[in-house]
């Protein structure tokens, strides 16, 4: 038994030694990686580590952090009703805009794929423009304005569908819907570009082979040929759409106000923003960030395992 452990340890040691040896031989590689790695660790890894640490403390920037154990998390779940509202809103937004935006951006990319080149370029610009147009979503505050001068209200009034202007951005009944529409409008982002480019790269002979093998319509072709060859792009697109779906913050803040009526448009990130940058309760805000972070990683794992099954 002892000799087994002894041998195991020797093996491990040899392996580590070999690893070091290899690392020493490749030392210039680390030199190349160093500037990026240093910055990346400072601004991405370290913040997450400190955020996890701060989430167990009471910290208000002025005083040194004081360790409070799980108190932040307990308060978050048991006492903070607004947080639960924000979780609910975030999930409603994420569950609708994430999958819908993802599927729509794939379908649009797929449909425009067969257009002639010039038309495809126009279509790509049209669909991609909203997501890079800065704060162009501001224009929705005019479209959804609460008085009769708002475009939607005046349109509905003209056709007699409503008899008094609706408070689109003030009435808790509508706020979330409006926010979802605006986010969907902006959801053709980097993932969409990746799909468009990926579809161009699918091997043409696969389609012909599929036709010989008896694929009858475009949907079968999509499921059996196109999707399996697009898997890497689909995974990338999933990461991007999770990012946009969970990090909703600017749109509800700009449209529905901050805070919004009855917290109807409060998301986890606006809640975090409130505690972090308005009240400076960094410990509590870090707990929110940690929860959000865990949820996103979990979601990513689930989606990746689902996508692996597509078309096989």
């Amino acid at each position, binding site marked *: 038994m002892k000799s087994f452990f002894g041998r195991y340890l020797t093996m491990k040691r040899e392996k580590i030694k070999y690893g070091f040896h*290899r690392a020493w031989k*490749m030392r210039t*590689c*680390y030199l*190349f*990686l160093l*500037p*990026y*790695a240093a*910055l*990346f660790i*400072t601004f*991405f890894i370290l*913040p*997450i580590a*400190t*955020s996890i640490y701060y989430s167990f403390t009471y910290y208000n920037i002025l005083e040194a952090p004081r360790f409070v154990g799980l108190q932040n998390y307990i308060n978050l779940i048991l006492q903070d009703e607004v947080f639960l509202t924000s979780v609910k809103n975030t999930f409603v937004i994420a569950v609708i805009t994430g999958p819908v935006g993802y599927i729509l951006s794939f379908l649009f990319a797929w*449909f425009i794929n*067969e257009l*002639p080149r010039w*038309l495809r370029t126009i279509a790509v*610009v*049209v669909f991609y423009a909203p997501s*890079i*147009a800065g*704060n*162009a979503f501001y*224009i929705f505050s*005019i479209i959804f304005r609460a008085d*009769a*001068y708002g*475009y939607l209200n*005046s349109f509905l*009034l003209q056709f007699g569908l409503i008899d008094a202007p609706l408070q689109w951005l003030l009435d808790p009944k509508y706020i979330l819907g409006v926010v979802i529409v605006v986010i969907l409008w902006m959801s053709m982002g*980097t993932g969409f*570009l990746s799909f*468009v*480019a*990926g579809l*161009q790269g699918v091997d043409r002979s*696969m*389609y012909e*082979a599929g*036709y010989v093998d*008896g694929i*009858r*319509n475009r949907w079968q072709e999509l499921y*059996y040929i196109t999707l399996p060859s*697009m898997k890497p*792009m689909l995974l*990338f697109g999933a*990461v991007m759409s999770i990012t946009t779906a969970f*990090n909703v913050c600017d749109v509800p803040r700009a449209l529905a106000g901050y805070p919004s009526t009855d917290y109807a448009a409060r998301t986890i*990130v606006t809640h*975090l923003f409130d505690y*972090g*940058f308005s009240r400076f309760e960094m410990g509590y805000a*870090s707990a929110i*960030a940690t929860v959000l*972070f865990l949820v996103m990683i979990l979601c990513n794992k689930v989606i990746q395992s689902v996508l692996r099954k597509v078309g096989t």
Partner: protein
Amino acid sequence: MSKKNAVRHIEQPKFKTRAEQLHFQAALRGEIEEEQPQLNVRKFLIGALAIFVILGIALGFTCYQIDKIGRMNEQIEQGLIEGTVGDEISIYMAVRVGIIAVAVLFGLYVLIKLCKPKRRKPNRSFWGDLCIYLVMGVIAVAMVFPLVFSVASSLKPLDELFRFPPRVFPQHVTLDNYSDLIVVLGQSWVPFSRYLVNTVFITLIGTFGHVVIASMAAFVLAKYDFPGGRLFFNVVVTALMFSGYVTGIPNYVIMSKMKMIDTYWAVILPAFAAPIGLFLMKQFMEGLPDALIEAAQIDGASQGRIFWTIVMPNVKPAWLTIIIFSVQNLWNTNASTVIYSESKKTLVYALQQIQAGGIARTGMAAAVTVIVMLVPISIFILSQSQILETMASSGLKE
């Protein structure tokens, strides 16, 4: 994924005779022209043209009538002429909508007929194409409407901005909103050019550093297998999901410890390490043949030399892409959490302050929106072919 595997669930099409099957396969190989009902193209075009002209005249006439009635109604309301506000407008409206719908349908039909390839692709039905492109057309119009609308409302004079019922397009085009914007910016106690210089400085330095640093890292991650490299890349991919807000708070603390709050570096340094740039660059560099690097190594080139003279010139589309993503990101940054002194604020931040000025600044706010969105969209339009080339390699391999 092998071809056989991909389609294994589907049965072979049923053929009654062997001859039929042979004919089908020959048609697939392109040896026999597929029989298709051929349209007489010239007749079709002439017909299409004629119908378009008729529709155009009808449309123009209806629009003219509607405007006339609208003007009359306005005059009646103002008491300039006698009469009552009529209901005719809604009838004309319905006619107009109907005509536009027919014209759009017909236009799409013609477009598909004209644009389709000589030999139709298999597995595509004409009516399926028509339905899909119709839906796509409607959605595209809906997508582009807010952008067009913001351009249109930035060109409206104040009285038209608050017109009831509102119109989409301005009747008297004016640049007043833009000149007002310049006046307002000129009155602020920090000159407007200062905001512009701030943003340009941040964008230039941030993008340049990002391209160099990220491609150095991407080069070794893509082309060399060294301990820890793959792990590092996986961490970067996970980091694609963090938004600035999640890491914002500890970042603020770290930056304040490093005395970087309220300096440009608070915006620039995190931008250097943006994960998306490294990710795209690495995926693109993996497509470069290894033989290229090996050949250079045999010729005695150092790693630095390989990077600068062999790899970098070969990944131009990728740099353009990450330059563009970085510029978009930095141009749109408002950095409101890390910069607070007025003279260091970015352009977007300053413009958003104007936008927040309430209802009296509606026109100016629209002008701001247009200015802010114009830069990234035009950069994208100019460089979209390179971007798409890079994005083709963006897939996440397991």
